[in-house]
Each structure stands twice: as structure tokens, then as C-alpha cells.
């Protein structure tokens, strides 16, 4: 093959193109909420941005989730790691436990789902676990209520292994072109028999039994101190996994801030006792009017976010005004920011007002 033909083939395969990776924070670089969460037992917790844990009906299970420093996988410095601190005695039929990653429909129109030209995609990732065996992965498409899945096998304990899974395109339903939850990718760590009974290896209507078809081991959940970690997650068009597309920290951080951001400096956990990063204003010189401030977001958010305010001391539901912690009125939370105001009659004129916040617009 000539050099020109090689180049044409390379371009045609998209391996030479940027923005191949549909995954945000696939190298687990960004962890705005903190780098470790312990005693987890309920769904919705994050350490590395955009990847959260789902617990389904477990009894005893408690886990620690960390942004782990990686030293044994060249090219990667971080992973998402879960470790079982209290094991589940057994996984019942209705119990499940998995990592979930959600995406907006407007970012996936290029998949051409819902047409006869729906494109195949390939999911690749590095995984390492103290448990060997077969694990399930599923892609659920909210629009159309469709699902497809596959499995991968961890062959050697405590060893990084790269996994590559190709999925057919979904011809059954289109992805709605909006900012709502359209695509979810699930990495199962445990699944009861209710979730494993129906074949999901081609796209079809959602059934509970399809969620984790083929999942073979629940030992991550049933073994104290068992670990499972993942990094280098890439989802791309085509039937070939290409080398992981690394992005800068700043690029990934901005992408993550569409879904979650905070007033605090990056490495400072929300609720920490600090003034750094807070939004300030001064109350008006007359007590006739309330005093308003406005916090502009660093990145426009996916939707109007839920605001958690903090005073300097880290108490939620509060802000600082005139040297005291007061309850703010949060005015019209929106994608670009939110207002807050306090009454001058209670705070006093020409007083300093400040607020810390978390803004959450996760899917």
C-alpha cells in the first residue's frame, strides 16, 4: 500500500481524527467532589466526575470509591476504584450493583440511531480487579427504551487488562436531540438472577432480565476488600478500538463542569471552612431594598442546576451576610448562574455578603 493509500485508509478509519472519544473523563482525571468516598451504600455518589455508583437492594454491602493513583499502567495516572469494605453475604435475585455513565442525546446524533444506517460503536477500557471472571456491560437507550449488552472476562487478578467490545447500531429508535438523558453505559459488579436471564446481545426492547445478561461473578460485592478499577474508557464510532484519546485536564474539567461545578478551588471539597472562591457582594446603602448578588457559572450547565449553598464555615443551606450565617433566597437558578438575595433589614447596609455553592445538573 502506498503512503497516500495508507493515509487515506487511516483517515477513513477515523483513527487519525480528534474528538473520537464520546466519553467524558474517561481517564478519570477529574474528581471535583473529592477523591474518596467511604461507607457508600446508596446510589448517586461520585468521586471521579460523570461516573457514579448504583446500588440495588443490597443489605450489608458498603464500599469505598476513590480516584486512585495509577502507577502500573503507562499512559494513565488515575482510575476509578471501588473496594468492598463490608461484603454482601449473598446476591439475591433482585440485587444489583454497577457503575453508570450517562449522556445527553444531543451529543450522540452522529450515531444515526433509529435509521437503517445506524453506526456500530466500540467501547474500550482498561480494567483491573482482585476478582477474575465474567462481567456484564450494558448500553441502555432511554429514547425508545432499548438495550444491548455484552460481557468481558478478567483473566488475571490484580492486572490491568484492556477490553474491547463492539456494539451494533440501534436501528429501532432515534436518539432525541436534546439535553436529557439518552444513553447510559453500565458496568456491572454484581447482578442477581432477575437481571441476567434474557439475552441482550442485539438491540431490543428493555427488559429487567436483559440488564446484566451473562454476568458471571458477584465476588466483587461478596468479598471483603475485593477491588475493581477502571480507566481509559473510550467509546467511538466504528468496529475497531483505537488508542485512547487523551485530553488535557482543563479540557476534561470544562466538559465535566457542564454537569457539576462548585465555587471552591478544584482541590477543595465543598463544605470546607474557607473563603477562597466564594462569590462576594456588598449590601445596598439603604435598608429599603434587599441586596442581590449573582454567581456566574464557569461553563454553561446542561440544565438549571440544583444549588447547594454554604457559608464560610461549610454549613449547607446558608451564606454569609454581615458576619453572620443566614439562609439565602436563591433566585432563579439557571444554566448560566443564579441570584441570591438577603434582606438589608436583617443584615445591615454596606455589609459584606458571600456565598459558596455546588451546582449539580447531572443526568
Amino acid at each position, binding site marked *: 500500500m502506498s503512503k497516500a493509500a495508507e493515509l487515506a485508509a487511516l483517515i477513513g478509519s477515523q483513527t487519525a481524527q480528534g474528538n473520537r472519544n464520546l466519553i467524558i473523563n474517561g481517564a478519570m482525571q477529574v474528581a471535583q467532589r473529592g477523591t474518596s468516598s467511604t461507607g457508600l451504600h446508596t446510589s448517586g455518589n461520585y468521586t471521579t466526575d460523570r461516573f457514579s455508583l448504583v446500588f440495588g437492594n443490597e443489605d450489608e454491602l458498603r464500599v469505598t470509591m476513590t480516584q486512585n493513583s495509577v502507577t502500573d499502567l503507562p499512559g494513565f495516572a488515575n482510575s476509578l476504584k471501588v473496594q468492598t469494605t463490608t461484603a454482601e453475604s449473598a446476591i439475591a435475585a433482585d440485587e444489583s450493583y454497577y457503575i453508570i455513565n450517562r449522556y445527553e442525546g444531543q451529543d450522540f446524533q452522529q450515531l444515526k440511531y433509529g435509521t437503517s444506517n445506524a453506526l456500530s460503536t466500540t467501547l474500550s477500557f482498561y480494567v483491573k480487579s482482585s476478582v477474575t471472571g465474567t462481567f456484564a456491560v450494558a448500553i441502555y437507550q432511554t429514547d425508545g427504551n432499548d438495550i444491548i449488552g455484552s460481557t468481558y472476562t478478567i483473566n488475571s487478578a490484580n492486572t490491568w487488562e484492556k477490553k474491547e467490545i463492539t456494539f451494533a447500531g440501534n436501528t429501532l429508535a432515534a436518539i432525541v436531540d436534546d439535553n436529557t438523558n439518552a444513553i447510559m453505559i453500565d458496568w456491572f459488579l454484581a447482578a442477581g438472577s432477575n437481571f441476567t436471564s434474557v439475552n441482550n446481545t442485539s438491540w431490543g426492547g428493555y427488559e429487567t432480565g436483559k440488564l446484566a445478561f451473562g454476568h458471571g461473578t458477584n465476588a466483587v460485592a461478596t468479598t471483603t476488600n475485593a477491588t475493581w478499577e477502571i480507566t481509559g474508557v473510550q467509546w467511538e464510532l466504528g468496529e475497531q478500538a483505537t488508542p485512547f484519546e487523551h485530553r488535557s485536564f482543563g479540557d476534561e474539567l470544562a466538559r465535566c463542569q457542564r454537569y457539576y461545578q462548585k465555587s471552591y478551588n478544584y482541590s477543595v471539597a465543598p463544605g470546607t471552612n474557607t473563603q477562597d472562591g466564594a462569590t462576594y457582594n456588598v449590601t445596598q446603602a439603604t435598608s429599603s431594598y434587599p441586596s442581590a448578588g449573582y454567581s456566574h457559572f464557569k461553563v454553561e450547565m446542561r440544565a438549571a442546576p440544583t444549588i447547594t449553598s454554604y457559608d464560610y464555615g461549610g454549613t449547607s*443551606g446558608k451564606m454569609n451576610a454581615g458576619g453572620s450565617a443566614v439562609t439565602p433566597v436563591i433566585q432563579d437558578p439557571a444554566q448560566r448562574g443564579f441570584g441570591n438575595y438577603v434582606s438589608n433589614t436583617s443584615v445591615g447596609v454596606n455589609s459584606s455578603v458571600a456565598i459558596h455553592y455546588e451546582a449539580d445538573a447531572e443526568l
Partner: protein
Amino acid sequence: MNITSAKYQANLEGENTCIIVVVDGVTMFVPLDPANTNYAEIQRQVAAGTLTIADAD
């Protein structure tokens, strides 16, 4: 989402602007945006009859 209290909060014009909720002891301000997942969950719980939103002060 374990919501222990929910109450509308009004803006300067007296219009409801968000819902103050307490979740696991943390106070949050939830916008009235159907695309916000917390708001959607609140609406689900209200429809199920398991949550009532108090009027604003």
C-alpha cells in the same frame, strides 16, 4: 433521594423560583426545571403521594 422536607421559595416578585429540600441532612435549592433530575424526582414523589411541598413563606 431521601427527601425529609420540601418547601417552595419565592423570588422578589413573589413567584416560586425553586424548592428548598433537605436530603440526608443537606439543604438544596432545586429549580423548577423538568430537565433537572432532582426536580423530576420530586415530581415523581409528589405524584406518588409520598412527598408534599409546603408553600413559600
